[in-house]
C-alpha cells in the first residue's frame, strides 16, 4: 500500500485540505488504487526521451511590452472579499513571517 494514513496527512498539510473523519478512510483507499493505476507508466521505456513540460505549436516571443494597463477598481476586488477593512484584505493573524 503506497498511500497510507501518514501519506494522506502529509498531503493534507501540503494542500491545505483537512478531510472529514468519515472521508479520510475512503479517500485514502481510493488514492491508493489510483496511484497503483498510474504505476503502469513505470513499465514504459523512456530512456533518452525528453519530457514535455510546455505545450506549444508555435515558436516565438510571448512577452509583453512594459506598459501600464488599467486594472480593477478597489471595490471590484475587495467587494467580494470574505473579510476586508480599510482597503485591506483581512485574515486571521499570521503567527510568523513566511517566505521573503
Amino acid at each position, binding site marked *: 500500500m503506497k498511500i497510507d494514513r501518514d501519506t494522506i496527512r502529509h498531503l493534507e498539510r501540503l494542500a491545505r485540505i483537512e478531510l472529514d473523519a468519515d472521508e479520510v478512510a475512503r479517500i485514502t483507499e481510493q488514492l491508493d488504487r489510483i496511484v497503483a493505476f498510474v504505476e503502469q507508466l513505470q513499465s514504459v521505456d523512456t530512456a533518452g526521451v525528453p519530457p514535455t513540460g*510546455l505545450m506549444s505549436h508555435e515558436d516565438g516571443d510571448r512577452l*509583453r511590452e*512594459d*506598459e*501600464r*494597463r488599467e486594472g480593477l477598481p478597489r471595490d471590484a476586488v475587495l467587494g467580494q472579499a470574505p473579510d476586508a477593512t480599510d*482597503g485591506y484584505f*483581512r485574515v486571521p493573524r499570521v503567527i510568523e513571517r513566511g517566505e*521573503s
Partner: protein
Amino acid sequence: MSARSDRYEPVIGLEVHAQLSTRSKMFCGCSAAYGGEPNTQVCPVCVGLPGALPVANARAVEFAVRMGVATHCAIADESVFARKNYFYPDCPKNYQISQYDTPLCHGGHLALAGGRRVGITRIHLEEDAGKLLHAEGAHSLVDMNRSGVPLIEIVSEPDIRSVEEASEYLQKLRSLVRYLGICDGNMEEGSLRCDVNISVREKGSADLGVKTEVKNLNSFKQVEQALAYEFERQAGIAEAGGAVAQDTLLWNAERGVAEVMRSKEEAHDYRYFPEPDLLVLRVDESLRARVASGMPELPDAKEARFVAQYKLPAYDAGVLTATREVADYFEAAAEAAGEAKAASNWVMGEVLRELNERKIEIAAFEVAPAALGELIRIQVAGKINSSTAKEVLRKMIATGKTAPGIVAEKGLEQISDDDAIERAATEVLDAHPGEVSKYLGGKEKVMAFFVGQLMKATRGKANPKLATDTFKRLLEARRG
C-alpha cells in the same frame, strides 16, 4: 575582535532580491510603483482571480539580462519559469512564479577591493508577493499592490569570509543595480532585500559546516549585526563541542538577536514544476546586442579610469563613483573647471555635505556642474579665497545666480593688490603695538591675530597668503 575570530572563520553567502524598476508588474499591466493606496494597483492576474493568466514583461527580462552581463554570468538562451508552491496570505495564487532548474543567468562573479572575487551562482526572475501587515489583535491585513512586481534573485556562492566583505559585496551589488538603472537599491523601502546564509569552520579547514539562514534584515547595518551575532553564536557552539542546527532564523532588530522561526509544518516542499501558462523564455541575439550596446561604464571600470585619467587617489575615485549620478556630476564639473583635483575636493567636500545634510540626491542639487566649475576656476585663479568661495556656493544655492555674478555683485573679489594689503597691514600693526612686541619677542602665534584683524578690516577679502607674507616683511622691518 574576539579570540574566536582567530580560530574560526565564517563562511557566508548572500541571497539578494532586487525589485526591478519597471513601469508595470512582472506578469500584468498594473503599475509597479511603490507607495500607492492599498489594493489600488491590482487586476485579475495579480490578485489571483479565477481564469487569470500571466504574461511576462519584456523589460524585466532585459533588466535581468543586464545584471547577468554586468556580473559576467552566462545568459541562458532558453530558460523556463516554474511554479513554487506554498500557501501564504500575501501569495494570491498560493504559488509564486519563479525559476528553478533553469535560471536566466548563472556562473558570474563580483570583484571586491583587493582582487577577491565573490562567485554568483545564479540570477533568476520571479514575482514579488503582496504586503502583509500585522494589525493589532487577532488579524493580519493584506495589500496586493506589491504582488507581481518583478524581482531578480541574486544568489552568491559561499565565498564571503567576513562581515566586512559581506557589507562590501552588498554595497557593490547595490551600486551596480543603480548604475544599471534597473533598481533603486533602497533597503529601507524594500526594493533591495538580503537574506544571509552563514556557517563557521576552523580557519584553514576546507569543510563546510552546517549553515543557518537569517531573514528579515531591513538595512545594511542589520545585515552586519546579524552576521556578527550568528558568527559569535555558532563559533561559541563549536568551541563548546556542540552542533549547530540547520535553522531558519528571523532577525529581531529590537532585541539584536536571531530567533528560530516557529513553524507548524516541516521544511517547505515547494513541488516546483515548469509553469505551463508561460512558454520558454528565449534570449535572442537582438536582446543580447541591445543589452551590450546599452551597458553603461560600470563602477569598477569608472573608478579605475578616474584614477588613471584624473590622477585621483583610489579613495577619492571610490567616493566619486559610488553612484553614477555623482560620478557624472564630477566629470562635468572637472571639465568646466579644467581642474580635476579641485573639482574632486569640492564634490567630495562641500557638495556631498550639502546632499547628506539635506538628504537629497544630486539630481535635486541647485548648482549645475558647469556652474560649480566656474566657481572653481575663479578660486583657483586666486580671485577669491577658499572661505569666500564656500560663501559664494551657499549664495549660488540660495539664489541660483552664477559665481562671477555673485562675486561682482557683492564685491567679494579677493584683495591681492600689494599696496592695499600693505596699507591695511600697516594699520593693523600700528593699532596693536603690544602684539607687535610679543611677536618680535618670539610668540609666532600672534601672526594669526594679525591676519585675523586684517581679514576683519577687509571684510574677509584679503588674500591670506599675501597677507601673511606682507606681515612677516613689515614685522621684520620693525625689528631693527
